[in-house]
């Protein structure tokens, strides 16, 4: 028996693209909302100087070391704030269930940009700061989930 994604489709009566709420849509929105929550926590910790970080501290894992490093700010803006802004925008984009070409392109661009940033931040953690921040890793995983779901929804065009 073939497995099908649970899809609730509300086709518009016009010839324009349909409005589709699917399992990938739900996963993308959930990942976006979680991303907002974690980024907000990192932002609060950044501005309160991170004295209460809920993060284990070992030789390899040290959130404080990462979030207080000089790489935690890009062009004067804390990376945590950039992450928060990114997830707010991406959550809004993925929450729109329409599949208009411009919207799809925007989502794909945003998801790809997020992954490029993840690669940069992982590089900085490993080779510049010399420590891994677990909360940041959580954000990276959520970015990957958003990327994968956006790719699933928008990366392969419908031929039907």
């Amino acid at each position: 028996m073939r497995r099908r994604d649970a899809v609730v489709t509300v086709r518009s009566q016009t010839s324009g693209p349909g409005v589709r709420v699917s399992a990938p849509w739900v996963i993308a929105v959930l990942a976006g909302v979680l991303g907002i929550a974690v980024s907000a926590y990192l932002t609060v910790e950044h501005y309160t100087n991170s004295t209460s970080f809920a993060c284990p501290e070992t030789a390899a894992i040290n959130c404080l070391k990462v979030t207080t490093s000089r790489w935690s700010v890009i062009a004067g803006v804390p990376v945590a704030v950039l992450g928060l802004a990114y997830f707010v925008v991406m959550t809004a984009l993925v929450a729109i269930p329409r599949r208009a070409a411009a919207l799809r392109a925007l989502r794909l661009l945003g998801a790809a940009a997020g992954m490029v940033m993840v690669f940069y931040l992982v590089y900085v953690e490993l080779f510049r700061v010399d420590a891994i921040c677990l909360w940041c890793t959580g954000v990276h995983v959520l970015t990957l989930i958003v990327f994968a779901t956006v790719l699933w929804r928008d990366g392969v065009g419908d031929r039907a």
Partner: protein
Amino acid sequence: MSRSTSTRGRQAAQRAAAARERIAAAQRRRRLFVVGGSVAVVVLIVAVLVVVKVATGSGPASGKKATSASAQVVQKVSTVPDAVLNTIGVGTAQTPPHKISGAPLRSGGKPEVLYVGAEYCPYCAAERWAVAVALARFGTLHGVGEVTSSPTDVYPSTATLAFHGASLDSPVLAFTPRELQSNQVVNGNYAPLDTLTAAQQALVNKYDAPPYVPANSRGAIPFVDIGGQYMISGASYNPGVLQHKTQKQIAAALSDPSSPIARSVDGTANLITAAICATTGGSPGNVCSSSGVAAAKAHLGASS
């Protein structure tokens, strides 16, 4: 409508449905290929980074080498106005000195302040400012340097004073600074500087350990023993307030009661001063009876 026409219509509909199903299945396969492949590439790139990191290893990095402190910095640290210190009280100091009931710690017939730290240590970097402000109220500091904490540790490259080789000229108080390591990496480790005497090491072993500090903070630096009556383990305020500031900026901020730096450093200095006053019998009177020190005295930690 005839029966044959109806049958042909059903067959056409079934063929169309089967075609749509084939197209949908092909699309799912394409999606799986694109998404699965992309995620696999991402995981592969991260894995390569981790493998390279593990293979190349890591280690500490040197900070800015210690130099003599500028006269301007020392002057500002030594002359924080009484009015500012009194206005701030304990400010935003977070951890007051802890009362201990050890043998009196004395040197040259005077109560002694033993400071143990390291130049690379960011928490020591923070505490030194407050210790210096407090000590300067009892005498004149000599031989103080300027240094930055490790660039690869928490609160990286925090600008601070250096106590290696420093001394205090005071009629009522002795000061013994011990910087165990510099901020310069030699053979993969921070180079050693001062060593502790057996008696000093015994104090660290006894008071920088449970029940005076949590088990996971055993041996933490900075460690300050104030006349055998009070001790400090770790920074007394949040070192984050010093981030991205130079020594000159920090020293200048100490006299501004609205500055977060002054509220942290001067507040901690008042607490340390109150603890020192407990060992000097309230001398000098103008310092120990000031309202800022009186306010701090009420916050001094209880005995263990």
